[in-house]
Structure formats: C-alpha cells, structure tokens
C-alpha cells in the first residue's frame, strides 16, 4: 500500500515536470505551502519545541554560553518557527527520497532525475527560509535607523500595553500559554485542566503531519499533470526532454549575448564588503580579503570577524541586574579554483571562538572548527565578484550544492551575495 502510494506520487511528480511546480504554486496567492506552514508551526508551538539540533555554526557556538532564561519571547517564537520549517523539510526530504530511490531501483533514470530536481528545489526553499529566520534571530547587526526604530517600537509598546484596548494581555511565554488556552479554554485557573491528546501520543501528531503533507503534495502534482496534459505536453519524451535541458542549461555568455573573457595573467587583490542581506548577525566588524591568480585560475581568501553580544537581565525598577557579554572571534581561510565561465569554487576552514563574560568576570570560552564551501561569480564586465558561503553538505553532494549556487547566481545576479568584492 505504501509503495503503491509512493509509486503514484512518483508518476505524478514526473507528470508535472514540464510545468515547474514551484513556479506554478507561486502564481497562486493562497498556497498549500502557507497552509502547511501553519500546520507545522502549530505543532511546534503546542509541543513547545525549541530548536536544539543545530548545524548552524552560530547556534552551536552560542549554546554553551547563552543561558536559556535570557531568551525573550520573540527569540523563543523564532526558534519554534525554525523547528517547524526543519520538521517540514525533514518530512519532505523523506518522502522525496523514497520516491526517487524507487525510480532508481526500477531503472527509470529520467523520472528519478526529474523527481529529484523538484525535491531539491523545494528542499532548498525550506533551507533558505531557515537561514532567513536564523539571521532574524540575531538581529544585532541591523543598521542604525532600523535598530533605533525597533528600540522605539519596543519602548512605545510598553505604553500601549498599559493604555491600549481592554482585554488584551501580553504573552509571557509562547508554548505554555498557548497550550493552556487550548486545554482550558481560558487564561484563568478555573477551567478543568485537560491533556492535549497529541501530547499523550506524540507519534500520532508527527504521522498526521506527514500524511497531510504527502496528500497535499500528491494533490498539487495531480493537478499539474492535468494542466500539462491539457496543454498537450508529453512527459519524459526523450526529444522534448533534450530540447528542454538545452534551453535550461545555464550559459553565462548568453545572459546578455556577450562572451565572458577572463584574463590569462595577473594577480588581483579584491576589496570586499559584506552585504546587508547576508550580514552575519553577531559580528560588528567583518573583513574579507580575496586574491585571484588568473594564470593559475585559482583564488585564496580570508574572513576575519569580531563581535559582541550583550544581554541584560532587568532587576528591580527596571535597573540592569545581570550583564552577560559574549565576545566572538571568527577566522576563515581557504582557497579554490576559477572556472572558464567565471565561477569560483572553494573550501574554507572556519574557526570560531567565543568568550563569555558575566559582569566583567570571564566565565568560559568555546571554540568550534569546521569546513564549509564558498561559491562566487564574476560580473560580465569583470569589475566585481559576488561571494557566498553554501555551508555544510549534509544531504546533497558538493556538485549539487555548487550547481544550485551557480543557478542562484545566474537567476538573481547580486541577490545571492554575502560579500561583494571589487578590483582594488
């Protein structure tokens, strides 16, 4: 029964290929994805899941140093959002992998490749969402005006909490208070306390989510096949497939009709600036140094960053009671190659050290080391290079990560950069 449904899903996935499902879904404003986002978030909040398994360098780094009571409600909520997206991504990945593997076993390479392409695109979207939420969780590196605006908002909101509309109380904790309302019907203690059944049988809740997600995707894909069939498109037809692949092949020189001619000799030192969109949240100073050796078609790079994060616990009358300061040092060095069509690929080793001071007394330090990948692309007039880190390869191959990064850079020039580097 299970393999039958996977088989059906597979057929449907293949069927939708000529129409890009992700794009098709984006044309519609009330999407299945949004509804599913709520479903996963509700589960995360009611089960009060806080992000704990971390692949992010920052959170892994921070976990031993930041005491959990300092988490404010906003951070708590963002953590639950991250967890919701991670669960969604895991479920999606599992179902996709089952489908793709089934096709591989059956020798249906074309079908497997197309299903995998869809799965990876969706996976990447969810991964990007997690990254955005992680950046938001830091929030310390916003520009001056944004920080000021948020500070005024926070301060002014306190007044509105006193004089604002009646019968509205600020929430102190997200998960426990939401659960209390769900199980008692009110914030008071009079109602009989009941247990959420999903709490009692947790695996039921998880299975429930997976099944709804699976059936929703099946439905979306089925509709796609109907639309494709109505448009007279054949699925996995070798000739059409070849034409389609040819038209989708990224070609840098075809973007504007000009061929990209890279220099054959010379060493360029680049002046880099980290971009707002990808600026890492905990670091106040970030310095990138990149050198390109055109003859060797190779590049080297160094990133050095430093930052302080300060958390203040309020005491009596709002006076600062406890001040925690975490100082971060981040160093990254590595090298890579430059391809003929102007892309940069490299591996970089990263060392992050944190020192935690508690009211000027050093209480501990922590160091983490790991390797990550960089991708980059040079502009057509060779005056700037856009770099981005693509993180660890957990589920996908390095080739796939690179191809995805390359596609991002082609699709959205300048929009996928963590650093923009110019020729000095």
């Amino acid at each position, binding site marked *: 029964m299970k393999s039958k449904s996977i088989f059906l899903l597979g057929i449907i996935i293949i069927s939708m290929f000529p129409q890009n499902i992700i794009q*098709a879904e984006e044309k519609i404003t009330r999407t*299945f994805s949004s509804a599913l986002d709520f479903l996963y978030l509700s589960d995360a909040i*009611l089960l009060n899941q806080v992000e704990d398994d971390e692949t992010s360098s920052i959170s892994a780094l921070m976990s031993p140093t930041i005491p959990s009571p300092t988490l404010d409600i906003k951070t708590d909520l963002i953590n639950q959002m991250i967890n*919701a997206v991670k669960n969604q991504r895991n479920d999606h990945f599992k179902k996709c992998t089952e489908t793709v593997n089934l096709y591989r076993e059956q020798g249906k390479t074309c079908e497997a490749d197309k299903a995998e392409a869809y799965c990876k695109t969706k996976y990447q979207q969810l991964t990007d969402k997690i990254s955005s939420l992680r950046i938001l969780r830091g929030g310390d590196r916003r520009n001056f005006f944004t920080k000021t605006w948020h500070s*005024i908002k926070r301060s002014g909101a306190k007044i*509105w909490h006193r004089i604002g509309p009646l*019968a509205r109380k600020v929430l102190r904790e997200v998960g426990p208070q939401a659960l209390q309302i*769900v199980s008692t019907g009110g914030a008071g203690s009079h109602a009989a*306390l009941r247990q959420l059944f999903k709490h009692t049988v947790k695996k039921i809740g998880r299975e429930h989510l997976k099944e709804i997600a699976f059936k929703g995707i099946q439905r979306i894909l089925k509709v796609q096949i109907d639309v494709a069939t109505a448009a007279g498109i054949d699925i996995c037809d070798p000739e059409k497939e070849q034409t389609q692949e040819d038209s989708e092949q990224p070609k840098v020189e075809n973007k504007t009709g000009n061929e990209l001619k890279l220099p054959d000799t010379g060493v360029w030192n680049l002046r880099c600036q980290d971009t707002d969109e990808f600026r890492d949240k905990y670091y106040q100073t970030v310095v990138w140094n990149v050198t390109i050796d055109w003859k060797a078609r190779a590049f080297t790079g160094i990133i050095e960053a430093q930052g302080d994060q300060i958390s203040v616990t309020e005491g009596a009358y709002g006076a600062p009671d406890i001040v925690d300061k975490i100082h971060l040092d981040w160093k990254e060095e590595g090298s890579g190659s430059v391809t003929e069509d102007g892309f940069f690929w490299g591996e970089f080793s990263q060392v992050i050290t944190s020192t935690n001071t508690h009211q000027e007394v050093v209480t501990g330090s922590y160091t983490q080391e790991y390797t990550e990948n960089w991708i980059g692309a040079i502009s057509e007039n060779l005056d700037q290079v856009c770099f981005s880190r693509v993180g660890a390869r957990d589920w996908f191959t390095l080739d796939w990560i690179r191809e995805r990064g390359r596609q991002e850079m082609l699709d959205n020039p300048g929009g996928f950069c963590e650093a923009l580097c110019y020729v000095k």
Partner: protein
Amino acid sequence: MTEGKKKTGWAVFGLGCGCLVFVVLVALGIYLYAGWVGYQEDPMIVEVQESRSQLVDPYTLSSAQQEQLFTYGYPEAFTILFYEEETVGGGAAPVRLETWDYYTQTIELTFINGNLVAEDPLEIDEVGSLDPLPYYPEQFGAFMSLEEVIAAAGIDTYVDIPLEKEFMEEGVMYFANALTFGLKDNELIYIEALALSEE
C-alpha cells in the same frame, strides 16, 4: 522703539516656543505610532468582548462525508487546509483538504473537496477517555475572516501570535479552546480542532 523691540522679542520667543511644542508633538506622535506598531506585533491573549454567533454553517458536507458521518460519527479531531490550485483553464480553484481523526476507532479519513481520498489506520495502543469535540468541520469555510471564525466557533479567549515576515507575510497564528488556526491576509487557510483527554 523700545516697545517695538519688546514686541519683536515676544514674537521670537513665541515662535521658538511654538517650534519647540511642534517638535515635541511630532516626536510624541512618532513615539506613540511606533509603540502602536510594536504593540500590534506582540503576541497577546485576547478576550472577546462582543461576538455574534453564526447561525448558518458556511460549508455543507458532501454526500461522501455524510456517509462517513453516519458510519463513524463526528470526528474526535480534524484538520482543514484551505488553498487554491491551478486549473486547466489557467485560473485558480479553491481546495478544501481535510482529515477527520477517530482515535477510539483508530482510523483517519482524508477528504479533498468533499471526496474521500484515503482511509488510513491509526496506530494507537490506548486512547483513554476523550472529551467530546466542541466543533464540527462544517462550521468552518474557506478564507473566513477572524471575526467569522470567532463567531463560528464561539470563542471567548484566544492567543494571537503575529508571525515574522521571514516565516510568512501577513500571517497570524491563533490558539483557542481545543482549537488552533491560521489566517494569512485575514483569510482562514488552516484550522485544527484538537482532541483533549482528562488528566
């Protein structure tokens, strides 16, 4: 002459005071406005002051659903997702994807637009005693507003959690008695009635 200077002095003083008052008022206005924005972004517990109960259900159960209702009764928990899908003609059609859970009978039914698409067994060892669910699937229709959901479900108190735009633009998550739901652009796209058991 002295009288003239005095008058000019008073005029300058008055103008200065006026400017100062203006600046203070603008600053106060910005402060209150920013505070109001921040206040609205904060998660809250809200007690409903006035609510009109909804007399007519916004959705009519399909014949397939009525048949299952006759067999199993009303569900002990249910989830409904509302969204749109592309049509062959190029437009968008609403979809109602719902699951009805019967824990004591260990079965889950899935309907899409009222058609039964799956009957899945639930693997539960012991269910215990469940409270009767105070809601029915037909009480909720696609893209209802918050006021309509409150009226339909007879909600007294709810938790209102505005979501970060990085997670969802214009999305708000709500929790009420045995109920959780989500609105995007003030349109209901997700609702789940939750089973509760005695502690």
